[in-house]
């Protein structure tokens, strides 16, 4: 019986290491395919013309940054106040309704949100503001919708984790609720909020479908100069071009190199976020 028990334990350990195995394999294969294309020119080159073997990703990288930073900003603008409301003001039942409503958004497939963006946001932008409609601005909104639920959830958790005694002390000193929130509670929750932001950025960088459908993906991307410009992201480039990149060609390697960049970026961001959370716990 003891032998069976230790056998079972070993088998379970193997299962648990499977995730580690996958990550190793991903790292290995990605790097194997992508490294041949990685070079300084890859990261700083301005021209992406696969047909002529130009693989400069700078416009794409900057496009990604534009889209991500704007989206995170919008998500914060809506999400932080919502979290504050949920944590400090909302009665129990209201909180439940709002939380459920926001959390279900996570379940909406990104294609559907992209479809929504394509059919509603893009024409709206085209008609009321200008440009092609497919734009960084559309990307902002669509991406903000996608990262909002996680942001709200994490931020609200951080706010709720602030001890009640802080609130009581501040109020007892004559501060209003709003002053207490801005001067005491939010600062106390700041590391959790920072972690939420970092994770949000990570998610935004990695998001593919919704963004892909609304940002235009011009054939030869340029460095964007306005929010109405069309652009590409790292993720959308891979998705659009993989089907006509010949296997083994420099084009294919370049796409994998983009994958490596994504992988490193997102993993680094997650690492930072976890580090921030862990430091806060101590």
């Amino acid at each position: 019986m003891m032998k069976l028990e230790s056998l079972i334990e070993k088998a379970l350990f193997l299962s648990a290491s499977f995730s580690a195995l996958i990550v190793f394999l991903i790292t290995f294969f990605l790097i194997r395919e992508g490294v041949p294309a990685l070079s300084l020119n890859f990261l700083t080159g301005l021209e992406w013309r696969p047909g002529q073997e130009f693989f400069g990703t700078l416009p794409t990288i900057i496009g990604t940054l534009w889209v991500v930073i704007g989206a995170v900003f919008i998500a914060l603008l809506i999400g932080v106040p919502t979290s504050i409301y949920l944590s400090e003001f909302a009665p129990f039942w209201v909180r439940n309704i709002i939380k459920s409503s926001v959390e279900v958004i996570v379940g909406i497939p990104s294609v559907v949100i992209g479809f929504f963006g394509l059919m509603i946001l893009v024409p709206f932008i085209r008609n009321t503001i200008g440009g092609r409609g497919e734009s960084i601005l559309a990307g902002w909104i669509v991406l903000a919708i996608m990262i909002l639920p996680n942001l709200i959830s994490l931020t609200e958790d951080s706010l709720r984790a602030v001890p009640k005694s802080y609130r009581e002390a501040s109020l007892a000193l004559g501060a209003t609720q709003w002053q207490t929130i801005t001067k005491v509670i939010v600062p106390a929750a700041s590391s959790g909020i920072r972690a939420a932001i970092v994770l949000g950025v990570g998610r935004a960088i990695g998001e593919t479908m919704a963004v892909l459908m609304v940002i235009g993906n011009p054939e030869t991307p340029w460095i964007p100069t306005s929010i109405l410009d069309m652009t590409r992201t790292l993720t959308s480039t891979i998705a659009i071009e993989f089907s006509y990149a010949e296997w083994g060609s420099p084009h294919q390697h370049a796409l994998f190199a983009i994958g490596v960049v994504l992988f490193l970026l997102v993993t680094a961001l997650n690492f930072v976020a976890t580090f921030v959370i862990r430091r806060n716990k101590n």
Partner: protein
Amino acid sequence: MNPVSREKIMKRLLLIAVALSLIILPVILIWVGYNGSGIISIEFLTSRPRLFEYGGIYPQIMGSVYLVSLCTLFGAPLGIASAIYLAEYAPDNRITQSVRFFTETLAGMPSIVIGLFGLEFLVFYLQLKTSLLAGAISLSFMMLPWTIRASEEAIKTVPQEYRAASLALGATKWQTIVNVVIPAAMPGILTGVLLGVGKAVGETAVVWLTAGSGLEAFVPRSLSSPTGSLPMYIYLLATQAHTVEGVQRAYGASLVLLIMFLGVSVSALMARNYYLRRLGN
């Protein structure tokens, strides 16, 4: 401006933000429902696409069903087994910490990167070709961390007292886990698995790179044939349909996809309640 009036203004601004958060879900649901319900019919659900933009979405529905079912077959047992190890056996040492670290890393991996990996490793290296199998396995990579997280959480919540009682009755550790701990953790485990299923149903980037371009107009005949799926079809219709009918079908497919997702969530809730009742709570 004195603090009291500032407080009032700020509260109003808060409520505006809350309203914005609240309207997102209903707007999207109503938009899909309104536009998509017109085309839903038995014929739509059971026939094949014609000329890409006409016809029904039966192969895509079945493609999604097969992909997700297969993916769960791979991912759920593996995820639960990993969770059991992490919750019940893993000593508090560096190896365990690394295992957790990698699980978390996998959780944060962008779907397109997993798609690339699936493409390289499964489709080409292992010669699985663009296929149902490659797609399902790749999807299971995505599902794995979520299942592990939720299951581990559920197992850890089972009170220590149950384990002590079982051990004191002469049961072994594994017998205790199988007969007492897992049944008690079932609500949480099921929720975790079904959460993963919900995510897999709507996942596009991964299946795009590994399972099929979406132009497949037939139900996959075997594990090695390429397959379409609802999300892929929606994407194609949304971006390339030239006709009103085509766009309508995109709405219809979106509605069906949402209903499938809803169905999964509701089953999750029902299964959860069933187990909660059986546990006598």
